């Protein structure tokens, strides 16, 4: 198969808008010299060619998003319906799309790989069931560890090596790819209605272990284990005015380790309360720019209705009290928890206006597009299918300025966005939506149009209407198969799942079993997800981290 004449944007190989032909053999890019002949030829003359999009942080499968689906029937009724055809199951889009629709919607805007960012090990089996029902895209997942009481107890006692083995065991038991940390210590404390906000204050229920200790040790564990993706960290104190101090302190705890800071937008606020809340993205971006050990994703907010879901239980209870709307809470034994609250972001609301600006500011003030990625923390900041709106905001200062006119007048002096004139180039967009997140995830075969990589390609018709262009690609290829063509879903192949197997001391199970039987309600033997439950598993090797 051949794609000819397109203007290619392939940041992983430094190709910036050159006209090139792409050859595909057996689902991978091939060298022309290898005799890649035959098959279909797509004439992409005058069109723009990107590597397929990679979402580093999204919530598309698992107990929490499935709870959100149940909580929002009113949204399902007004949203896009995918009508069944002989080759395609029916589904519903919206704030919490059904699994089938999730695949259609991601592929429909050119995304071919997604990372489900928060999986409680106890419901990993459930999450994989859902992931296998998301067609087209390839998937990876991060298991939640920062509030696992077995691990916290070991850290409290200073048993680092044992804690490392436990983390490795959980990653493999959950058939996960990476490790997510959410509000370290805070979610455990929430089981008793408390939180953990200070990085150097002991976690409620512990004598000396602090959230800072958890962050430092967990990041180190993940590097020691050589997981392809570094610690995926949701910092403490999410969403609160003045939380930039916590975020900066957290980042200091990460020095010397690799780290991915999730949805930084929610962690970049100044002020003392909701009325004085302001953007501190400039301060945060300065620190971040100077510390190349970290990557981040924006967690950008767009105005409109959504449903927020996060393992950060205490934050969700606060949000429920603020909105007075629906609230769902899930506790997952001794591992983690989760809250679900439908929410509407409004430009007339000062807090929401600050959040909207901060997401964009971070994307514009962090100078290396290889370290900041496109995300809305779907569905928290906005639904993933609204990414084209963010791309538009990044590529057009005029559009941003026009949007800012709709913000509440109270926003004056609280954000930096009005002074920023930077506009993203197509090359930079290809970096933040594909090449960068693929690299951060350690998925070398993704976000890269080089020979041997997965032939995931999105082809756009050049269009002055940026949202239309990115929202309606002309072709999307997944593994060399045309899945979207002129707005139609052509094929719905099953995706793969990336997993990794860090090594751990062989006596770990013997050590863990009695503790497990003490604090879990299920059998130890039934807990690990069997390999057969994973759809098309693709094992990724661990790496050496200096």
């Amino acid at each position, binding site marked *: 198969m051949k794609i000819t004449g397109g203007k290619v944007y392939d940041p992983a190989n430094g190709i910036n808008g050159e006209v090139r032909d792409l050859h595909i053999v057996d689902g991978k890019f091939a060298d022309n010299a290898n005799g890649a002949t035959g098959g279909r030829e797509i004439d992409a003359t005058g069109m723009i060619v990107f590597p397929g999009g990679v979402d580093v942080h999204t919530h598309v*499968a698992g*107990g929490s998003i*499935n709870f959100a*689906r*149940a909580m929002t*029937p*009113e949204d*399902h*009724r*007004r*949203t896009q*319906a*995918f*009508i*069944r*055809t*002989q080759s395609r*199951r*029916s*589904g*519903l889009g*919206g704030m*919490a*799309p*059904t*699994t*089938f629709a999730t695949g259609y919607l991601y592929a429909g805007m050119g995304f071919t790989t997604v990372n489900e960012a928060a999986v409680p090990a*106890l*419901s990993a*089996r*459930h999450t994989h*069931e*859902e992931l296998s*029902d998301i067609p087209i895209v390839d998937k990876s997942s991060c298991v939640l560890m920062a509030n696992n*009481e077995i691990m916290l107890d070991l850290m409290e006692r200073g048993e680092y090596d044992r804690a490392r083995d436990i983390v490795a065991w959980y990653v493999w038991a959950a058939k996960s790819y990476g490790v997510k940390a959410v509000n370290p210590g805070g979610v455990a404390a*929430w*089981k*008793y*209605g408390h939180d953990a906000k200070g990085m150097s204050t002991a976690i409620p*229920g512990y004598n000396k272990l602090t959230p800072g200790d958890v962050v430092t040790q967990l990041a180190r564990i993940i590097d020691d284990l050589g997981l392809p993706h570094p610690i995926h960290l949701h910092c403490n104190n999410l969403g609160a005015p003045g939380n930039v101090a916590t975020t900066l302190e957290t980042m200091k705890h990460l020095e010397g380790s690799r780290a991915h800071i999730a949805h930084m937008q929610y962690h970049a606020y100044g002020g003392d309360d909701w009325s004085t809340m302001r953007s501190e993205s400039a301060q945060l971006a300065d620190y971040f720019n100077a510390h190349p050990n970290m990557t981040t994703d924006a967690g950008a907010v767009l105005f409109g209705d959504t449903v927020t879901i996060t393992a950060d239980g205490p934050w969700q*209870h606060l949000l*429920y*009290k603020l909105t007075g709307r629906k*609230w769902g*809470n899930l*506790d997952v034994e*001794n591992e983690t928890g989760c809250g679900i609250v439908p929410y509407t972001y409004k430009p007339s609301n000062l807090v929401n206006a600050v959040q909207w600006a901060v997401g964009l500011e971070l994307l514009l003030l962090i100078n290396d597009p290889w370290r900041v990625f496109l995300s809305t923390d779907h569905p928290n900041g906005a639904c993933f299918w609204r990414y084209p709106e963010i791309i538009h905001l990044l590529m057009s200062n005029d559009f941003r300025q026009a949007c800012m006119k709709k913000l509440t007048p109270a926003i004056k002096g609280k954000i930096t966005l009005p002074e920023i004139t930077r506009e993203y180039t197509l090359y930079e967009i290809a970096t933040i939506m594909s090449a960068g997140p693929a690299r951060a995830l350690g998925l070398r075969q993704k976000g890269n149009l080089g020979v041997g990589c997965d032939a995931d390609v999105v082809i756009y018709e050049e269009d002055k209407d940026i949202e239309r262009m990115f929202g309606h690609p002309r072709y999307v290829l997944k593994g060399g198969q045309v899945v979207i063509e002129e707005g139609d879903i052509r094929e719905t192949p099953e995706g793969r799942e990336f997993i990794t197997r860090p090594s751990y001391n062989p006596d770990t199970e013997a050590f863990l079993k009695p503790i497990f039987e*003490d*604090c879990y*309600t*299920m059998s130890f033997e*039934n807990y690990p997800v*069997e390999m057969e439950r994973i759809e098309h598993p693709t094992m990724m090797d661990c790496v050496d981290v200096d």
Partner: protein
Amino acid sequence: MYWGGNPAECHPRHFTKYTLMQKSKFLPRGRKDRTMALVDIRATKSAKAADIFLQVRPGKDFEMITILRAMVKGESIPESQIAETGLSLETLEDLVARMKAAKFGAIFFGMGLSMTRGKHMNSAALLTLAAEMNAFTKFVAMPMRGHGNVTGADVIMRWQTGYPFGISFNRGYPRYNPGEFSTVDVLVRGDCDAAFIIGADPGATMPQPAIDHLAAIPTICLDPHVTHTSKLAKVHITTAPAGIAAPGTGYRMDEIPLPLKPALNSPYPSDEEVVRRINQAIAKMPDWMPEGEPPMVLSQV
């Protein structure tokens, strides 16, 4: 708190395995560190396990929960009104005080609540009470699901269709309206003109008009036994019992999936195999949806 359920007889290991007896890191003395309240219309066997038993008058659950919601917020309710529920002001004040003093409260509610007059609103009331309790302390609530894998059906329908039950695909995509698309209503009104019944025996449990309609239309029944439904069905297929002679997955009431490990080899095929083969047989027939004319989406206006 257990409400409208009788775990001692219907979920015998619920106390020992999940709620009362387990010793844990934060409650090392097990049962001694816990308080159990039971609300029901009569003193079942479960009442023996409870520290407090509150006998609510039949059909007054919704009123009692609503009173509790008010009392939790400090509203005073006249004693005469409370007496209507069969309980005294003193009893409810004690209950509210204990709920607020708890470190972690959990409410489990059964069909005595969710299937009596008020139905889904009774469940909604209790869930709201639990949510509102979080202004004071940690509180959660969970339905005590009855037979087998009903939770699995709920969870799967949610991720594949967006809705937990009561779904119509008549327009080629999922729509939801309990009361309109829920089975008892559909059968009593005589709305459907064929039925496929699996893992249930409505012929034994549903109201007579519903059973009469099932007998009047072609009904297909899959079950490990020849059931009441099988007897009125056009087609019955015997299948291997799930978890005993058929492998797979089952969901616990807290939505945790567990592997099913059969001990026997059945002479009959599994449900999974039979339904898949029916699906394959139907897939060979011409599609019911006219090509090029997808149904109109009936969305919210």
